[in-house]
C-alpha cells in the first residue's frame, strides 16, 4: 500500500517535470525558425486582425488567400458584433498587447478616445509611402472623419449616409408622391399608418444610444446641432422640433416594442412589409432588396433625406475605418494588409458587389455601381455633396453623451415633457463636455 502511494507520488512529479521540460524546449525551437529566402517579403509572419460583422469584411475574407500567397503572411481575421469588437479592442489595447495588429474602429465613436489613449498609430507617413496607393482618391469628407489632432488615425473603409427608405406600392396606392420635406413625410406617414392591416407608418431605431445617430439628420435639417463651440445645445427650439418629429413618429406611428430596436430589427420589420417608411444608413440597403430576406424586395424606394426648416442635411459619415496597433511587432506587414484591403483594386471589387466604398474613383465608374439600385446611387451621391460629416457629438466620451441625448427621445416616447427632458439632457451633456475638457 505504502509502496504504491510512493510510486504514485514519484510518477506524478515526474510527469510535472517532463511537461515543464517540454514547455521549455518548445519555446526554444520556435526561436530558431528562421525565414528561408523565398522572395516573399513577409514569409512566415503572422497577422491578427479584428473586424466587425460587415459585408465588407466577408468580401475581404474571401479574397484573403490572394494576399497571403503574395506576401507569405498568415492572416487571422476574427470578426465580432460592433459592441463586442469595441470591447475586445479596448481590452487588448489597454493591456498593451501586440495583437490585434490591425483592427476596425468606428472613427466617430472611438477615434478620439483611442487617440487620447495612444491606441492608434498615426498613418500620415504610411499613406505617402506608395504613390500607387493614391490616397487622394479617398473622399475628402471620409478622410476628415478619421483625423484627430491633425493626424490620420484610420483609413476609412465604409461611408454611410442617412436615406429614406419607402414602399413604392403603398405610396402609389394612396396616390402620394415621394416626400421632399419632413412635413410632407409626416402627412404621408399618417396616411399610410394602418396597424389593423399590419402596416405601421414609420420605423427607425428606438434604442436610446443608437437612435441618436439617426435623429442627427433630423437635428441638422431643422438647423440644430449637438454643440455650439463648447456649449451643449440639444435643448434648443430647433433640436426640440427635430426630436419631436423622430420620437413622435415612433410613438404614434411606430411598431410596438420600438424602443428596443436597433437597425436589424427596424430593417427586418420594413423588409417584412410592416412599415411604410424607414430611415437609416444607406449601406444596409441590401437587407431590403434581398429576395431571401425581404417580402417587399421589388417595392423598395430610396429618397434623399427630407428637408426640414434648414434644408436637407443628412449625415454623411465614415462608419468604419481600419487602424494599426502602435504596439504591433509587425507594423510593416500590418500596413501592407491595410493597404491591400483598401486599395483601388479591392475597393472596386467590393463596390461591384454592392458594398459602398469611400474612394471617389469607384463612384464615378459606371461599372462599379452597376449592382446598386440606380436611384440609390443618385441619392448617395447627392447626400455626399450636402451631408454633414458627423452623426454624434464630436467629443471623447461619445458613449455617455449619446445615452444622455437619446434620453430626450425616449422620455418623449414614454409620454414625458420633452422640454424638461431636453433641459436635463443638455445639463448632463454639458457636464460630460466639461469633464472631457478638464481631463
Amino acid at each position: 500500500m505504502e509502496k504504491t502511494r510512493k510510486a504514485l507520488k514519484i510518477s506524478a512529479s515526474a510527469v510535472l517535470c517532463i511537461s515543464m521540460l517540454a514547455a521549455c524546449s518548445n519555446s526554444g525551437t520556435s526561436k530558431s525558425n528562421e525565414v528561408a529566402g523565398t522572395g516573399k517579403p513577409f514569409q512566415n509572419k503572422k497577422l491578427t486582425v479584428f473586424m466587425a460583422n460587415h459585408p465588407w469584411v466577408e468580401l475581404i475574407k474571401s479574397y484573403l488567400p490572394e494576399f497571403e500567397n503574395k506576401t507569405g503572411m498568415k492572416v487571422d481575421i476574427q470578426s465580432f458584433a460592433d459592441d463586442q469588437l469595441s470591447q475586445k479592442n479596448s481590452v487588448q489595447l489597454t493591456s498593451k498587447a501586440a495583437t490585434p495588429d490591425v483592427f476596425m474602429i468606428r472613427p466617430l465613436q472611438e477615434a478620439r478616445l483611442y487617440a487620447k489613449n495612444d491606441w492608434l498609430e498615426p498613418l500620415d507617413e504610411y499613406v505617402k509611402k506608395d504613390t500607387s496607393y493614391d490616397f487622394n482618391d479617398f473622399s475628402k469628407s471620409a478622410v476628415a472623419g478619421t483625423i484627430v489632432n491633425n493626424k490620420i488615425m484610420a483609413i476609412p473603409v465604409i461611408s454611410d449616409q442617412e436615406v429614406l427608405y419607402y414602399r413604392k406600392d403603398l405610396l402609389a396606392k394612396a396616390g402620394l408622391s415621394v416626400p421632399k420635406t419632413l412635413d410632407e413625410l409626416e402627412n404621408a406617414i399618417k396616411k399610410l399608418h394602418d396597424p389593423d392591416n399590419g402596416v405601421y407608418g414609420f420605423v427607425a431605431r428606438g434604442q436610446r444610444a443608437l437612435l441618436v445617430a439617426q435623429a442627427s439628420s433630423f437635428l441638422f435639417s431643422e438647423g440644430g446641432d449637438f454643440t455650439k463651440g463648447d456649449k451643449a445645445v440639444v435643448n434648443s427650439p430647433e433640436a426640440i422640433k427635430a426630436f419631436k418629429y423622430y420620437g413622435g413618429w415612433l410613438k404614434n406611428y411606430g411598431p410596438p416594442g420600438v424602443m428596443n430596436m436597433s437597425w436589424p430589427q427596424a430593417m427586418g420589420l420594413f423588409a417584412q412589409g410592416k412599415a411604410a417608411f424607414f430611415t437609416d444608413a444607406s449601406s444596409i440597403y441590401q437587407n431590403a432588396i434581398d429576395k431571401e430576406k425581404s417580402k417587399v424586395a421589388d417595392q423598395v424606394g430610396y429618397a434623399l433625406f427630407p428637408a426640414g426648416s434648414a434644408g436637407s442635411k443628412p449625415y454623411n459619415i465614415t462608419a468604419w475605418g481600419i487602424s494599426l496597433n502602435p504596439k504591433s511587432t509587425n507594423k510593416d506587414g500590418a500596413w501592407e494588409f491595410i493597404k491591400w484591403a483598401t486599395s483601388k483594386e479591392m475597393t472596386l471589387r467590393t463596390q461591384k458587389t454592392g458594398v459602398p466604398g469611400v474612394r471617389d474613383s469607384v463612384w464615378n465608374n459606371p461599372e462599379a455601381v452597376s449592382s446598386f439600385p440606380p436611384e440609390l446611387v443618385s441619392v448617395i451621391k447627392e447626400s455626399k455633396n450636402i451631408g454633414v460629416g458627423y452623426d454624434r457629438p464630436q467629443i471623447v466620451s461619445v458613449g455617455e453623451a449619446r445615452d444622455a441625448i437619446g434620453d430626450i427621445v425616449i422620455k418623449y416616447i414614454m409620454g414625458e415633457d420633452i422640454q424638461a427632458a431636453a433641459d436635463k439632457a443638455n445639463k448632463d451633456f454639458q457636464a460630460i463636455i466639461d469633464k472631457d475638457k478638464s481631463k
Partner: protein
Amino acid sequence: MSASWLDKNFKWVMTLPALLFVLLMMVFPIIYTVRISFFEWSMSASTPPRWVGLENYYQLMVDVRFWKSVWHTFQFMVYALLLQMILGVGIALLLHRDFIGKSFAKTVFLLPMVATPVAMGLVWILIYEPTGGVLNHLVQLVGIRPMDWLGSVKQVIPSLVIIDVWEWTPMITLITMAGLTTIPKDPYESADVDGATGWQKLWYITLPMLQPTILVAVMLRLIDVLKTFDIIYSTTQGGPGSSSETLNIYGYVMAFQYFKLGSASSLLVIFFIIVMSLTLLFMFVRKRLGGIS
C-alpha cells in the same frame, strides 16, 4: 531525500495548483478592482490612473441611475426567486410521484437548464417580438390584447423574470428532487396510521423535512439571480431607456461604453458587498431556522 520531502509535503504540492489558481484568478481581481475604484482611469496606456479617493463612491451615491439599477436588481431578484421556488418545488413534488413516462417528463423539465443563456435570450426575443412573435399570437388566441413585453417600460422586468424562471426553475427542481429521495418512509407510514390527509403529509412532513434542501437551493439561486447578466444583455441591454438596467449591466456600460473604469469598479465593489451581505444574512437565517426544525 527528495522522496521524503515530497512525502511530508505531498498535500501542499498537490493543492498548490488549485491554490495558485484561486489566488490569481479570484483574489487578485477582487483586490485590483477595489484598488481601481479609488482611481479615475479611462483604460489609457499613456495617462495613468489618477487617485481620486472616495470620489467615485460619492458620485454613485448621488447618481439616480445607480439607485434605479439597484431597484431593478432587487425587483428582478425577488420576483424570479419567488416564482422559481414555488414552481421548482411544485414540479419536483409532481415528478416525485410515480406515473407513466416519468423519466421522459423529468428530462423535458430539466432541459432548459442546459441551454446557453445568451442563445436562449435571442430565442426569447423572437418569442416576445410584439408584431410577429409566437407569444402575442398565443395571447390573442385566448382573447388577451397583444403586449409589448420587452419593449415596454413596465413589462420589461416581468418579461425578463419569465425567461429567468423558464431557464432556472429546473435547477431548483433538480436539487429538491435530490432532497426528496433522502426523506425516510416511516414518518409517512405513521401519518397514514394516524389518518393524515395528503395535504397534511405535505405540510407537516415533506416540506419541513425538505427545508434544508430548499434553503440551499434558494441560496444558490439568490447569488446567481443577483448577478444575472447574459439574459438581460442579450435581450434588452438594459433598455428600453434604462428600465431593465441592473447593477451588473450598468457596471458593464460604465466600463466598456463609457470607459469609466474607476466608477465601474466602485459600482462593482458595492455590488460585491450587497451580494456578500445578502448571502451572509441568508446563511444566518438558515442557521436559525435549522435550529428550530
